[in-house]
């Protein structure tokens, strides 16, 4: 637990084990990229993803204003599942069609 904010420290996740490049601050760039990818995936479900820029947390929200904070990818999927009317599924043909359309 963090002694400053009293938040439980999230477990290490395998997806954090690879960083692109050896620059002084690769996590920020990786984090920005991850947020963009998540936003593209969750947009067809009517959800948005934003990065408050503090801690390891992202915010997942729906169009009615309901929002959850989530630390790490498993928590993002769990939050999205609660906020979405239909299950988040990477094999969902509607999602794949939306991604293809966005790709142009």
């Amino acid at each position: 637990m963090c002694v400053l904010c009293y938040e439980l420290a999230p477990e290490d996740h395998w997806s954090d084990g690879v960083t692109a490049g050896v620059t002084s601050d690769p996590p920020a760039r990786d984090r920005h990229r991850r947020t963009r990818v998540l936003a593209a995936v969750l947009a067809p479900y009517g959800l948005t993803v934003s990065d408050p820029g503090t801690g390891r947390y992202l915010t997942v929200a729906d169009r009615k204003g309901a929002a959850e904070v989530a630390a790490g990818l498993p928590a993002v999927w769990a939050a999205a599942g609660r906020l979405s009317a239909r299950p988040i599924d990477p094999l969902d043909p509607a999602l794949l069609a939306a991604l293809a359309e966005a790709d142009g």
Partner: protein
Amino acid sequence: MTLLGAPEEAGTSGTTTRRTVTVLSGFLGSGKTTLLRGELDRAGDRAPAVILNDFGATMVDDALLSGAADAPIVISGGCACCTRREDLAEALAGLLDAEQRGTAPRRDHVVIETSGLSDPGPIAFTIANDPVLKHHYALARVCVTVDAVTGAAAAEQHEVALRQLLAADDVLITKADLVGPADVEALVRWVHELNPSARVVVTARGEVLRTIQPAEVRGPGGRALPASTEGAHLGGISTLELTTGDPLDWQAFAVWLSALLHAHGPDVLRVKGVLDVRGAGPVALNAVQHVVHRPEHLTRPVPPGTRLVVIVRDLDTELLERSFRAFLTIR
């Protein structure tokens, strides 16, 4: 140690200081203990620490192994993957404790011989996620024995035998002297159809007869020979090889795989391969069921491009590949 020894080369600096763990699994009577005895005899002073888990209340294997090395640590009375994970964690922690107290030498390598009814996945999970153990131990390999006479039938009849086979990094075919060469050859190809990422070692009486690397049974064009093993009547198990010529975006890949595991985890039986990651170079990825091990940056030279073997149950592999590529093209 040739079969169950620690890896000859560490993939990253992150694994060099941790003790390596080999999980020796295989269905009942498939020759795990015979193989381990031979390995311990050959290892002599460099023998690994051994943890045994037997399903029955009465232990037999420890008696067979005693004298070959230091007394093995025994976990009896249950299956390590289901009911005794705590004991497995305690056994591994006990090795550390004995080392700290100076009552045992440091062992850089541990072999866990599982019961014949254990699923290696949760055992790997215990090693990778225990808050103490994960800093001291790294799973090196899952070795699975397959009886040359009865192994294929066992995998077709028993779910756990099939799961063991799919979790394997090394498949050790045992008792090859009891069947003809053609039968051994057919078994090797069958194993590779199921698990193209596995190395296959043919043994008899604990001795290695030959080793077949995964690449040796690959077809032309870089794609694994069979894209699907549904013809083997193994409960909708399909094998897919995902390849890319260009380096891929790690974040897009990580989002894809984590979403897949979240939505379909129980049906994703194995993910293993080498990714060519943009900006980071080659990265080895290994997941046994829902347990994804920390990726390893590889320092040794590997062929360019990504090659990832995915073994799934009751999932549309065409849709899976479309999904993989769609996520990688997100801008």
